[in-house]
């Protein structure tokens, strides 16, 4: 048989537990807008009943077993995977949109119209070769062409350097996040061994992991103590050991620049590596491996000694995440630069060959009559090094319009031959072979049926950039929508609903009031018992 005092205890437990529940409800409401917060619920169960022989068991009240967060771990890993795909597309999108601005097509000011003006100037010269104005215009439109090419290449170099800087700071962020997750692991471990659920700490850790997943593609797993291990999905390499005291398998660093030093026995490629993405902590590492490029992410052993200049680097083949996006963007830009170089080289070599009246003759003295020269003395032209022969700029009469250098003033046949190069098809990747087919008799270079015209080669470059950018934008938009839906699902599970919380609040409040009423009833019963039974 239970006594009144025993029932007091039941009511007291009831009030305490309802108050705890209100506290958690209040915690939920106050964190309704906290990023990464998952709503918590108080799990109640009856306390150990009290057996009374012959009657049965009397209930002894209620207790809080645990406070847990509502979270779908599977959804988390799905979101993280999609996050890293989005990270890749977004990084590519923002980089390629800037490349589009470098090319500025279609417009009246891009390289397309500069080339139009260049070829047209030769046409005009072919009509009025006796007019020195026409020669000046040819020289000046060529200078405009060279300037445009130099400028575009410079802008792409700057863009690549900017991306490498961005990459370095992303690697830094990733390392900081890994460090913070490690700290959280430590704190969570300390709570877990006491048998408690560190809900808020786990929310904070999950948020950090979400952020990390946009930068690098990761997989996570929890050990029996709730400590998290993070591995890179592409390589399987461990980026964070679940034991907070244990160093991971890899540390991420960023290659800021690559310099080629011919003949260095320690390694011909000098990499400037920002350790853990810290741009104030850079090392020069020499290697003979040619694979490294500006903006690359490299893995090293965390216990590596960097000061001796010998560091074992591995180059992970990252596919997803912002780091991969930036690397791919740099690769793309390098490819566009290569195409632009081929175009410039093609134009310069064919014009030079056709421009020289001695081409194909026994006393072939090309250098004296070259229209274009490289700034750095290299044999091959690139968007970066092309310039107009300064002798021609000083004396525009050196522009060859006639068949021979002593041709009559009215002979514009060579200028016409140069203007007609525009119609020719050439293999830009092997222009030397095509140029070798120059026929001094009719001043023409045999057109290569397998080649392309300069105009369409340039348009192909623009189309490639357009398609790459479109692809990145489409991918990033798709990921955005997909993530929106996944996050909605996550929110429908973990998110705080104010309506729901207010309803619970009323529920708990009512229960609290009812428990209090039990308390006052008991008090009246005691009053009856003590005061009412007076003789």
């Amino acid at each position, binding site marked *: 048989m239970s006594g009144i005092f025993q029932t007091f205890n039941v009511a007291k437990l009831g009030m305490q537990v309802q108050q705890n529940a209100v506290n958690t409800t209040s915690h939920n409401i106050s964190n309704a807008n906290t990023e990464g917060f998952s709503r918590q619920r108080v799990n109640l169960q009856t306390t150990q009943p009290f057996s009374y022989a012959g009657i049965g068991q009397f209930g002894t009240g209620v207790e809080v077993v645990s406070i847990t967060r509502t979270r779908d771990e599977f959804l988390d890993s799905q979101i993280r995977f999609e996050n890293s795909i989005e990270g890749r597309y977004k990084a590519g999108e923002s980089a390629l949109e800037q490349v589009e601005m470098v090319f500025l097509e279609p417009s009246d000011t891009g390289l397309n119209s500069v080339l139009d003006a260049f070829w047209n100037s030769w*046409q005009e010269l072919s009509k009025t070769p006796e007019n020195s104005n026409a020669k000046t215009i040819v020289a000046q439109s060529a200078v405009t062409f060279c300037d445009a090419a130099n400028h575009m290449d410079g802008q792409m170099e700057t863009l690549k350097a900017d991306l490498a800087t961005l990459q370095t700071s992303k690697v830094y962020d990733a390392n900081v996040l890994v460090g913070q997750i490690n700290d959280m692991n430590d704190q969570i471990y300390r709570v877990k061994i006491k048998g408690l659920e560190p809900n808020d700490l786990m929310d904070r850790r999950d948020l950090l992991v979400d952020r990390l997943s946009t930068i690098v593609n990761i997989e996570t797993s929890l050990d029996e103590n709730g400590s998290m291990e993070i591995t890179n999905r592409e390589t399987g390499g461990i980026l964070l050991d679940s034991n907070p005291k244990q160093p991971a398998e890899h540390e991420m660093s960023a290659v800021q620049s690559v310099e080629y030093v011919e003949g260095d026995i320690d390694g011909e490629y000098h990499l400037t590596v920002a350790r853990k993405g810290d741009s104030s902590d850079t090392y020069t590492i020499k290697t003979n491996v040619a694979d490294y490029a500006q903006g690359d992410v490299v893995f090293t052993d965390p216990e590596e000694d960097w000061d001796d200049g010998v560091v074992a680097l591995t180059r992970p083949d990252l596919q997803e995440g912002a780091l991969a996006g930036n690397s791919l963007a740099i690769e793309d830009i390098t490819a566009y630069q290569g195409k632009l170089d081929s175009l410039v080289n093609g134009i310069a070599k064919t014009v030079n060959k056709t421009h020289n009246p001695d081409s194909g003759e026994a006393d072939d003295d090309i250098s004296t009559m070259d229209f274009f020269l490289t700034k750095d003395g290299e044999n091959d032209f690139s968007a970066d090094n092309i310039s107009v022969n300064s002798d021609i700029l000083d004396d525009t009469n050196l522009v060859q319009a006639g068949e021979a250098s002593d041709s009559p003033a009215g002979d514009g046949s060579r200028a016409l031959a140069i203007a007609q190069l525009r119609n020719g098809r050439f293999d830009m990747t092997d222009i030397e072979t095509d140029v070798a087919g120059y026929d001094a008799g009719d001043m023409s270079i045999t057109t290569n049926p397998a080649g392309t015209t300069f105009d369409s080669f340039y348009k192909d470059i623009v*189309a490639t950039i357009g398609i790459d950018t479109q692809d990145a934008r489409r991918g990033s938009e798709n990921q955005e929508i997909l993530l*929106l839906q996944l996050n909605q699902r996550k929110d*429908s599970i973990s998110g705080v609903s104010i309506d729901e919380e207010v309803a619970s609040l009323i529920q708990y409040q009512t229960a609290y009031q009812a428990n209090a009423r039990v308390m006052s009833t008991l008090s009246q019963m005691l009053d009856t018992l003590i005061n009412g039974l007076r003789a």
Partner: protein
Amino acid sequence: MRVTNGNIMNNYLHNLNRNLGNMQKYQNQLSTGKEITRPSDAPFLATRAMNLQTSIDRNGQYLRNIEDSIGWMGVTDSALSDMTDILQRVRELTVYGANGTLAPDDMQAIAQEMGQNIEALAQIGNTNYDGRYVLAGRETTSPPFSVSGNVLAYGGGDGELSRELSENVTMSVNVSGDRITNGVGESLADTMKNIMDRLEAGGNSELSSDSIAKLDDHLENMLSLRAEVGAKYNRLQAAESKNGAETLNMTELLSKTEDIDMAEKIMEFSMMESVYQASLATGAKILQPTLLNYL
């Protein structure tokens, strides 16, 4: 599915943002008048627009080439026509001088007029177009014909002046003076000199037996040169009208490729505007209330 306030908020913001993005797209298209401003808007359309722009620009250059050539040919034709007239006059005078019945004074007068005609031939032969001597072959900077002591001399060059009229189609636009003077057996200069000598010698049977036949040969040559110029002139005019038609076609195609349809765009824009306003209005309603408002 359980719906939370954060859920509604995120969804709302995403959609609102997307609507605003669409508004911006239409607004941009309306203010530039272009369907595409970047290659990534539509890579295929962008390169097609660039192709058309280049082709239109090249056609513009070809048109300038054709117009120049037409001007040049016109000047050449009228020079050749004037020269033919003079040669006709020369023939008349020669026939007159070959008569054998004229007094020495009359012969002298004929010889004098003949001298003037030789001067005139040289003068017309030195016709220039835009400062360039059209009948001088490639030596366009110096006058090709000269006369000294009633002897006509051609000191110009030879060779062709080619122009590109459309892709890989070139045409020579000049008639060099040596084709006029050395077009047939005896040079025009020699024929004229012989006539002059024979007139001054007081009339000579060779005037009728030789000179008239030689003059006829030169007239014949002149006619064939003029026929050639005429044919080329026609070809140029055909090229000009073809060029014009092509440019017109391509301009129209370019406009279809990159220009917006104003009416359609404005409709799309106002539809988007209503959607945007509707989303703002529902947002204002849906975001405010919670259960708290009713307790």
